[in-house]
């Protein structure tokens, strides 16, 4: 991917200071010279306390906070993650994302150049997703009271007219589709964490999924029964939530789950199960059995769905449980993640 950049404006400080969050002249300068200019749109240009707009029909509303470490990782940074994350949450509701809010909590001392890089990533991520950032907030906390930068985004979207997304529509026989490689984001982040010196060319797959979702809803409408992005807790945790909510069983086939070789290797080394590793650039879809193959074909035509695969189905047996058939034909229950997945001793 080509790194997109914008020239950084001339600012008085090399680092963010407490004054930049005071609401006074430094805040104003930072916003005027940086944020407003970069994220420019008619609603933001009013510089008001909030955005005023009209939207019709059923709406979806979502929020998420981003507290990752490191804030820069192979394939992206916390900025695009904050945009894609909320955009994708809205898409999973069957909505077309429209407007986002953007709030920063910055630890004083963050280099201005890093803040700028994050802002630029936000700008391009919002453009790719076709959303506008229409309101926001900036706070600065003392050194040691934060971890470089935390970002919150909330978003509003219009529910697609053909969408009927709910666990109540799930039926036995529904097919489970995953839109791409599992566990890539989590392992890419882990590869650059302190104390883990494994070398890999892996990059995070963080991306907006809303265009792919819209194309599926346009064509298949209510045959798409559920959409979920398996972020924290990974595929296993989300599938358990779905099975519990619809009181049906879910069978998955290990052989069919797409995992990059590098990711599978890293998981072997670190003693992690890819099913529990966090994802960013993929989603799970439960779709009516009679259209599953067509959905798969359509999804594979999109930028984000080239590796999509049918990995399982909904079954009336073992309600509220997820059962995996291993590569060698053995079966086991896949439970929810307990706490954080920790590397094993040996």
């Amino acid at each position, binding site marked *: 991917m080509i790194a997109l950049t914008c020239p950084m404006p001339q600012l008085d400080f090399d680092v963010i200071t407490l004054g930049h969050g005071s609401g006074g002249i430094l805040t104003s300068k930072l916003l005027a010279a940086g944020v407003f200019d970069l994220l420019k749109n008619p609603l933001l240009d009013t510089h008001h306390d909030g955005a005023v707009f009209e939207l019709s029909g059923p709406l979806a509303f979502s929020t998420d906070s981003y507290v990752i470490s490191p804030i820069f990782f192979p394939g992206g940074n916390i900025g695009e993650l904050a945009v894609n994350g909320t955009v994708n949450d809205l898409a999973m509701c069957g909505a077309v994302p429209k407007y986002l809010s953007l709030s920063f909590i910055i630890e004083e001392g963050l280099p201005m150049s890093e803040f700028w890089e994050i802002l630029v990533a936000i700008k391009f991520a919002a453009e790719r997703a076709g959303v506008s950032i229409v309101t926001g907030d900036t706070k600065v906390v003392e050194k040691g009271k934060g971890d470089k930068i935390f970002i919150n985004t909330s978003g509003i979207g219009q529910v697609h007219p053909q969408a009927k997304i709910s666990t109540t529509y799930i039926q036995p026989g529904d097919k489970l589709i995953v839109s791409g490689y599992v566990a890539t984001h989590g392992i890419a982040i882990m590869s650059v964490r302190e*104390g883990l010196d494994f070398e890999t060319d892996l990059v995070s797959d963080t991306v907006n999924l809303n265009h792919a979702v819209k194309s599926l809803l346009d064509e298949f409408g209510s045959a798409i029964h559920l959409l979920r992005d398996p972020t924290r807790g990974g595929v296993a945790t989300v599938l358990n939530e779905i099975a519990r909510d619809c009181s049906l069983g879910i069978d998955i086939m290990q052989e069919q789950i797409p995992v990059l070789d590098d990711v599978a290797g890293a998981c072997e080394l670190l003693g992690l199960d890819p099913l529990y590793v966090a994802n960013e650039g993929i989603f799970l879809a439960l779709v009516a059995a009679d259209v599953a193959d067509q959905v798969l074909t359509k999804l594979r035509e999109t930028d984000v769905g080239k590796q999509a695969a049918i990995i399982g189905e909904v079954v009336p047996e073992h309600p509220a449980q997820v059962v995996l058939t291993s590569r060698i*034909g*053995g079966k*086991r229950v896949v439970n929810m993640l307990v706490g954080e997945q920790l590397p*094993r001793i040996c």
Partner: protein
Amino acid sequence: MKFLTEYRDPEVVESYVGELHKITTRPWTIMEVCGGQTHSLVKNGLLDLLPENVRMVHGPGCPVCVTPVHLIDKAVYLAEEKGVIMCSFGDMIRVPGSRKSLLEAKAGGADVRILYSPLEAVKIAQQHPDREVVFFAVGFETTAPANALSVVHAQRLGLTNYSILASHVLVPPAIDAVMNDEDVRIQGFLAAGHVCTIMGISEYYGLVEKHKIPMVVTGFEPVDLLQGILMTVRQLEAGRATLENQYSRVVPAEGNPEAQRVIQQVFEVTDREWRGIGTIPHSGLEVRPELAAFDANRKFSVSIPKVPECVDCIAGQVLKGIKKPYECSQFGKKCTPENPLGAPMVSSEGACAAYFHFSGVGL
């Protein structure tokens, strides 16, 4: 993935499973010693593929599980009260002590770090000459060389702020202790492949001889485990009791002499308490007295009271293979991985946790 997929080949698995079904004529009880093997058996769904007559019981080979509670209390104390940088392998930090786990101590502000190698801890000691750095050195013979090497490195670098809190345990004395228990009905053993990679196989001839029991040094992949079980059942059906090596691609008969040398250089054999089992003579390693400066047990002389095990927990019987995890009245009820009552539920390699996570029994 080379060296991995061939040991997960469904066709090979099927042929071993078929052979096992063909040759098994009577009920046999076999113990896999190592927690890694338990994990793999359950995770890959292998137990379902075995003939009904072949019953696997799960041994005490989870070092995290058998680490005594008072040592965890000590690690927590050092991290909280002495201000040390407490470094540990990942799965050790969630194990509850009598008051709290290292994870909870971390949440309370203690400096607890998860590392993949003890040599990283030596680096941290170099970077923080004003702080004491302790590595919680847990494990069987497998992790002992790396932990020993960290002491050798620290000594070579002239560091005075690095020490290890050693809780090393040894496999052969544990097998002996299990077999000496009169309630135990085990007829064959899968010995732990990785331990033998370091120590070789010679220690096991005596055990085979003494207990007249077949033993097969076995690896961890599905094909390894099934082949190991098949080799054991073949011996049992033929009335033989010998030591065989299924994992010869990794385990040379003499082990790794260089690794053994560094273990000898830093550690000596001692009696060791096993959580859930009790003290087993000559079953652990401690830092040699001449290296006391690198031994957190001697360096920080704090007295941590011993606490009794939970009375509802049948960990001792599970670790000796007398009972299955789901035969415990508390399994999946009062005792879960989030709130473990005893040793085998605390780490993902413990038999109870493996059953809880993967088999769905009792849920």
